[in-house]
């Protein structure tokens, strides 16, 4: 269907009543009620797998509810597909962006809409409207740029423009901040405020409670598919929210200093090219000691991703050396690195860390398929694997219907827990953790942090790459700040204040 180019639609109120949605083995939503009002930000909270995305996908016509009703301005509506939801004035920014990388911004926006010169595309017209919207809402985008050229933050702005362009009155943002830098989050919030003042109603999903407190008017908490109720955001404290979500209290960690050992991971003069033919690493020097967490902070795109990939052996090193316990692993294969005692928790967990179509169990044993306690000559020892899988699912409280479920049906946070379990169970000497808690809920974040600290206590050298300053500051014994492919400097725990790190992230050297 080709949709007409719409005007801004005004939706006063959307109500979801007693929504039930079942998947094989799970009830993802169990009699959930939700009311979204124009001019408000409605936060949707819940642990990984609580059913937030599922609920919103029904509002956007991607799934049909098994039971329950959706009312738009008090009139019952049935959405058979996103086309129906768009027509009704609903827009959605997905947890995983829905953009076509090989097409331009304008083409992505125009996709599926009627053109003013049907059947010809009218991209000039589209670009003009994009520019108008981008000014009105403070969303900087370049209509002629290709999506693959854009940073994650820019891609998100395109997603928002796509919804606004279609005249969406209610816009769902599924974990929009998970992939943004602190600065980008601030910009996004400015845009969101402008949207509510224009009369848009917003649904905001996030695991970061300070964000929720900063922007929301209403808060609804989901737990195991059920609604724990809706409260005005003004009236609830952080601790109350946590309790509603997790069912218990989660206190911020206060790690005890431990005795650090010898230098374990030694990086000197490391150089590598980036994706866009520029040099991403321009001589990185770092030493990580056994029993130490070295945090690497920085605005995304300053070489952190490339650094992690070089260490993991996924990117070609063009200069410099990497030593692991004195052994040169600069050009070592993945297997050799594993054998040398290195583990890796990738940032792009869906792409680099797991196989979507494989089951929970298969993904858990991806690395141990060769020689391990779970093989018998060339055969796999399935009974032992199954037992170990059950153990891991329990230990890490991974929410999965069964060990046989393909992981593409798991929620994002649960996939991360699974990878974490796999990498840590190898008792590594050195661990590279890239954004280990991105998109992960509070309970699981706490759990992952505890495991990292446990590894540290066991004498593992941990390189923690993260854009979450709170995470860096809580866990790291020392903080290295990365800027344009080099280290701006290394701070001790006491020196690493938000201000100092922030300045160094902007390229201002510490004094």
């Amino acid at each position, binding site marked *: *269907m*080709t*949709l007409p180019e719409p005007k801004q639609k005004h939706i006063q109120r959307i109500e979801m009543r007693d929504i039930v949605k079942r998947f094989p083995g799970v009830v993802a939503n169990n009699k959930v009620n939700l009311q979204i009002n124009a001019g408000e930000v409605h936060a949707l909270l819940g642990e990984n797998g609580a059913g937030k*995305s599922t609920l919103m*996908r029904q509002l*956007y016509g*991607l*799934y049909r509810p098994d039971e329950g009703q959706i009312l738009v301005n008090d009139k019952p509506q049935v959405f058979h*597909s*996103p*086309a*129906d939801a*768009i*027509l009704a004035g609903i827009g*959605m920014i*997905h*947890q*995983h962006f*829905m*953009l*076509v*990388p*090989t*097409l331009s911004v304008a*083409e*992505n926006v*125009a*996709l*599926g*809409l*009627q*053109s003013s010169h*049907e*059947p*010809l*595309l009218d991209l000039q017209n589209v670009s003009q409207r994009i520019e108008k919207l981008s000014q009105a809402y403070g969303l900087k985008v370049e209509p002629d740029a290709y999506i693959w050229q854009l940073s994650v933050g820019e891609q998100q702005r395109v997603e928002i423009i*796509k919804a606004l362009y279609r005249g969406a009155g209610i816009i769902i943002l599924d974990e929009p901040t998970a992939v943004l830098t602190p600065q980008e989050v601030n910009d996004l919030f400015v845009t969101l405020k402008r949207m509510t003042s224009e009369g848009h109603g917003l649904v905001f999903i996030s695991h970061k409670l300070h964000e929720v407190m900063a922007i929301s008017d209403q808060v609804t908490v989901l737990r195991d598919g059920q609604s724990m109720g809706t409260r005005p955001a003004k009236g609830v404290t952080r601790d109350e929210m946590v309790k509603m979500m997790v069912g218990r209290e989660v206190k911020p960690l206060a790690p005890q200093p431990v005795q650090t050992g010898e230098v374990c991971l030694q990086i000197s003069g490391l150089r590598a090219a980036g994706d866009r033919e520029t040099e991403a690493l321009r001589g990185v020097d770092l030493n990580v000691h056994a029993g130490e967490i070295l945090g690497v902070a920085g605005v995304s795109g300053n070489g952190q991703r490339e650094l992690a990939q070089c260490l993991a052996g996924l990117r070609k090193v063009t200069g410099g050396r990497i030593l692991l316990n004195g052994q040169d692993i600069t050009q070592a294969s993945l297997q050799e690195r594993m054998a040398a005692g290195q583990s890796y928790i990738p940032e792009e967990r869906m792409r680099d860390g797991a196989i979507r179509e494989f089951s929970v169990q298969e993904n858990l044993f991806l690395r141990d398929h060769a020689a391990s306690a779970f093989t018998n000559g060339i055969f796999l020892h399935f009974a032992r694997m199954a037992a170990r899988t059950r153990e891991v699912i329990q230990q890490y409280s991974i929410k999965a219907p069964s060990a046989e479920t393909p992981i*593409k*049906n798991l929620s994002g946070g649960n996939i991360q827990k699974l990878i974490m379990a796999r990498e840590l169970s190898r008792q590594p000497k050195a661990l590279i953790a890239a954004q280990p808690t991105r998109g992960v809920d509070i309970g699981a974040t706490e759990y992952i942090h505890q495991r990292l600290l446990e590894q540290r206590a066991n004498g593992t050298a941990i390189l923690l790459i993260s854009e979450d300053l709170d995470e860096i500051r809580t866990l790291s014994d020392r903080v290295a700040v990365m800027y344009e492919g080099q280290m701006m400097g290394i701070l001790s725990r006491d020196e690493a204040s938000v201000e100092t790190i922030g300045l160094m992230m902007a390229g201002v050297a510490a004094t």
Partner: protein
Amino acid sequence: MNEDILTLAVVTGILTSAIRLATPYLFAAVGEAFAQTSGVVNLGVDGIMLVGAFAAFYVTLQTGNVWLGALVAILVGLLMGLLMSFISVTLKAEQGISGIGLYMFGLGLSSLLFKLLVGTVQTVEGFRAVKIPLLGDIPVIGAIFFQHSIPVYAAFLLVPLAWWFLEKTTWGLKIKAVGQNPAAADSLGVSVDKVRYFSVCLGSALAGLAGASLSTALVNLFQENLTAGLGFIAVALVYFGGWKPVGILAGALLFSAVNAFQLWMQVLGANISSDVAVMLPYLLTIAALVFATNRVRQPAALNKPFERGEN
């Protein structure tokens, strides 16, 4: 080998044949490019061509009307395209296997109908050459480019037309989006299935026409397995051409030139084994695919059935 075998007349002859022979490659490969751009690999092209070739041949034989023959070939191609789309889009079957199945179905059906309805190889009066006024009179150039039959001109016109359709229209945009990221297209209310049906059927109709051009414009006869795998080369040409009509044109010309050269060498009795000569285009296919792997441009969702709701 004869020293002056490559006289001007021979070179002109080779180039003229090359242009003519490019016709079925172009129809079939541009058609396949539509299907693949939307994310569906249709390996049944050769089978569709065979049925199209027979249909055009038989209708022409019976009615004496080549145009009617071509039209029926297009319709038959369309029907086979519907079958392919139903299996691969609606039933979400493995595309490679369904395509091979469609090929064997087309091979069998065309052979059977030929035996039942015709029996012996005979010729028909196919499309006549139409000399383009003025241009056709230019020495050498005129003979090479401007003294062909209508289907030959149409095949070359199809190249810019296909480019225009894919790059400049709303439908082209949908086809590309569905082939690259069907979930994104779906989330904007584009019906992935509808777009894929359309692209596969369009491609198959063109494959039917490719068959018609073979049996009623190039050789003016039908025999069992007339295409001899030409449809598979067309599929390879899509990869070779990087899913771009211009790239396909370059590939089609390269192959038809090698083919024409090989044919002329045989006619002139050059000292090459005919088996080796006939192998030439196929060897070239393999070589071309090895050296021209355009992984970057490949539609990301190629060969993947779409199911809503998987993130």
